[in-house]
C-alpha cells in the first residue's frame, strides 16, 4: 500500500450506465471475466487431472465425470473462456507492437475476437451435444 489517501484523490465513476461501451470494452470485460473464470475453475481441473492419472478406473471415472450434464455445461463455458482469453491475448500482443493500434482497426479486431470466441463456443456446443 503506497499511499493511504489514494481513495480520496483518485477519480471515480461508479455509474456504469453513464459509460459508453464500444466493442473493445465489451471484449476487454470478456477477457477479464474469462480470466477470473479460468482461475476459479482451476481446482476442478486439477481434481480431474489427478483422478485421470491414478489408475485405469480413475481415468474412466474422470472421463465419465466430464460427460455428465452439469460438467458438460461447465466445460463448455471453460472452453469459451479459454478461447476468448487466448484470442484476446493475441490481440493485446499485436497492439503492444503497434499493429492495429488505430481506433478504427482496434474496434474491428475487438469485434473479430468476440465473434471468433463465440464461434468456438458454438462449434464446441455442436460437438458436445449433437
Amino acid at each position, binding site marked *: 500500500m503506497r499511499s493511504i489517501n489514494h481513495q480520496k484523490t483518485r477519480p471515480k465513476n461508479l455509474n456504469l450506465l453513464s459509460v459508453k461501451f464500444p466493442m473493445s470494452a465489451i471484449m476487454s470485460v470478456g477477457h*477479464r471475466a474469462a480470466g477470473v473464470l479460468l482461475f476459479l475453475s*482451476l481446482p476442478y481441473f*486439477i481434481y480431474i487431472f489427478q483422478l485421470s492419472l491414478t489408475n485405469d478406473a480413475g481415468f474412466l471415472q474422470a472421463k465419465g465425470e466430464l460427460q455428465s450434464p452439469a460438467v458438460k455445461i461447465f466445460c463448455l463455458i471453460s472452453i469459451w473462456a479459454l478461447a476468448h482469453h*487466448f484470442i484476446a491475448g493475441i490481440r493485446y500482443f499485436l497492439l503492444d507492437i503497434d499493429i492495429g493500434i488505430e481506433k478504427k482497426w482496434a474496434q474491428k479486431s475487438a469485434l473479430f475476437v468476440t465473434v471468433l470466441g463465440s464461434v468456438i463456443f458454438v462449434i464446441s456446443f455442436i460437438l458436445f451435444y449433437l
Partner: protein
Amino acid sequence: MSYQAKGLQAWFLQRVSAVFMACYIIFFIWFFLNTEQMTYPIWLNWFSHPLMNIATGLFLVQLVIHAWVGMRDIVLDYIPNDAVRLITLTCIGFFLIASSLEMIRILFSLSFNV
C-alpha cells in the same frame, strides 16, 4: 528492480507467461487431437515422459504468475478499500499456492518413463 519499474515487470511477466502457456496449450490440443482413442496408458505415458512432466511443471509456474498478475490487476481496479483488498489478495495467494502444491504432488507422483 526499482519501485517505478514494478508495473513494467508485471507487464513483462504477463507476456512471457502468456507465450509459454500458448505454446503448451497448442501442443496439448495438437497431441490430443492426433490421438485416435485416448486411453489410460497413453495418457499416463505422456505425463510420465520427463519433457512433458517438466513442461507441465513449468506451465504450472507460468500459470501461477499469470493468474496472480491478472487477479491482482482486477483487485486493484475494483477494490478501493485497503483492508478488503489485502484480504482478497491474501485469499488469491493461498488459493494459488494450494493449487500449485496439489499439482506438484501429482506431477512428482509419476515416475519418469523414458
